[in-house]
């Protein structure tokens, strides 16, 4: 356990070099390309506060960057080791794979939060009313929700980022088309990830610093449940299959 805790520094270093820098670059470019032309066009009318017409867009972009970052972070978190065979030397050492990957999930969460801290600092130069604290809180919730499902898919499949993107997008489409129809379909879509709550959650949590407790519990519960399933598969499945 102590050796694994020490190894978390290596895991964090890997995150920074392989994913963190990419996340910050993509997020910065996205924000710059999105808002800088608007700021120039609006000139003195640009206020960057909550009354600004682009405030809503800023929240949507911030939310999308978080989702993309989580997708990048958990992509291949376990499947890469299995596909490439890296697990062989790692787990011939006296460590428990369940604890190893659980720790990796947490370390990557810290990494995503640090990346979002940098990005939100940059965003605040354009939107002074943007709350870094609320944004990090939102990031943590989405990481657990989306990352938990991604973690499970990375254990269960070898094409996890594609599967996660399909699940995330598919859930959204199915909820849009079947959610309001009533009957068994609307009940069935309730089992899908609560992606339809994302916009509302982004607006309320990042924008105002509040969120419905039930939504937060739903997001966290959903992610944690799949995270736990993933850990169970690592424990009772085969790394080499």
């Amino acid at each position: 356990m102590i050796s694994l805790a020490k190894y978390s520094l290596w895991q964090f270093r890997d995150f920074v070099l392989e994913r963190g820098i990419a996340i910050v670059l993509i997020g910065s470019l996205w924000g710059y390309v999105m808002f800088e032309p608007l700021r120039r066009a609006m000139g003195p009318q640009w206020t960057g506060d909550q009354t600004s017409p682009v405030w809503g867009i800023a929240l949507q972009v911030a939310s999308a960057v978080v989702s993309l970052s989580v997708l990048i972070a958990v992509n291949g978190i376990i499947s890469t080791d299995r596909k490439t065979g890296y697990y062989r030397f790692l787990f011939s050492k006296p460590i428990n794979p369940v604890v190893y990957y659980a720790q990796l999930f947490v370390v990557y969460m810290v990494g995503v939060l640090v990346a979002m801290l940098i990005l939100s600092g940059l965003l605040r130069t354009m939107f002074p009313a943007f709350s870094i604290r609320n944004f990090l809180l939102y990031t943590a919730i989405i990481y657990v929700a989306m990352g938990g499902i991604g973690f499970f898919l990375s254990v269960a499949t070898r094409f996890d980022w594609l599967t996660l993107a399909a699940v995330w997008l598919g859930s959204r489409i199915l909820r849009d088309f079947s959610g309001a129809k009533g009957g068994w379909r609307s009940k069935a879509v309730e089992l899908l990830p609560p992606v339809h709550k994302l916009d509302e959650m982004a607006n309320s949590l990042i924008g105002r610093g509040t969120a419905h407790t039930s939504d937060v519990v739903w997001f966290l519960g959903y992610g944690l449940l799949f995270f736990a399933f993933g850990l169970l598969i690592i424990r009772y499945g085969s790394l080499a299959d």
Partner: protein
Amino acid sequence: MPCAGDHSAAPAIVIEFKNVGKTYKSLLGNSVKAVEEFSLVVAQGEILGIAGPNGAGKTTLIAMMLGYLRPTTGTVEIDGVPARHYVERNGIGYLSELVAIPPKWRAYTALVRYATLAGIPDDEIHQRVGYVIELLGLSEHRDKKVKALSKGNLQRLGLAQALLRDEKILVLDEPTHGLDPVWTQRFRDIVDGLRRPDRTILIASHNLDELQRLADRVAIIDRGRLQRLVSTGYEHAAPAMTRFRIAVARGHDLVRATFPQAEEAGRDEFDVTVHSIQELNSTLATLIGQGVLVASVVPEHSVLEQQFREAVGESS
């Protein structure tokens, strides 16, 4: 009735495969039996070789021993506990057939990472890493990225990480794969040096000569089944060793006179057939007594080679 002394003399069983089977199933429902009804015990202090043709199930057996694969039937135990539990608690020195280390890691830092995971104390890590780098001749490659290493150097790096700790169990899967003749020989010396009464070593290899030299016993497997368990010592070798190549430095004509059936195999070399080692020795004594200077006596097939041919031939 065995007395207490018998028990204390018998080496402890370290690794036990109990009726192990592994069946792979495809998505279409097809199944392939990689290992079937495999039972074997490996004693403390033993070097056990595992030999078999490609696809015989060697690597599957090792994956089950490390807990990377769950057997479909049976169990694998180390020190009386399920294999995976043992590995998680104690670790095993393991060199896999395919050395898979992230290509962006540098050789030295890769070893530091593995040493950290192996639980080597911080103040000993650099000393220990330095030792295995020196032992495996990797000093000039220590700062290279893994992707820049040649196949042989990568293999040595794989072996270096397996030797980081003073492990009680070492598992080496095709350890000389990709090594040049100099390092193949060096590797054999290293493994010889690792032999200890409290250390058990498993070596899976295609190279029968290597196993003959290093292992105490060799499990010959084919089509997932244990075909034979062969002791490599020459005390059991008599029935198998019937043909030898004798090279002489002097007395060429005398060999022909003593062994009329000897076939010339080259300059000063003869192939002779005997029915036992005793017969070989008495004949050699006669030759030497007559003034022949014998330069070498080499069996046509080693004990293991002979057994392997028979076992794999029988099963196919």
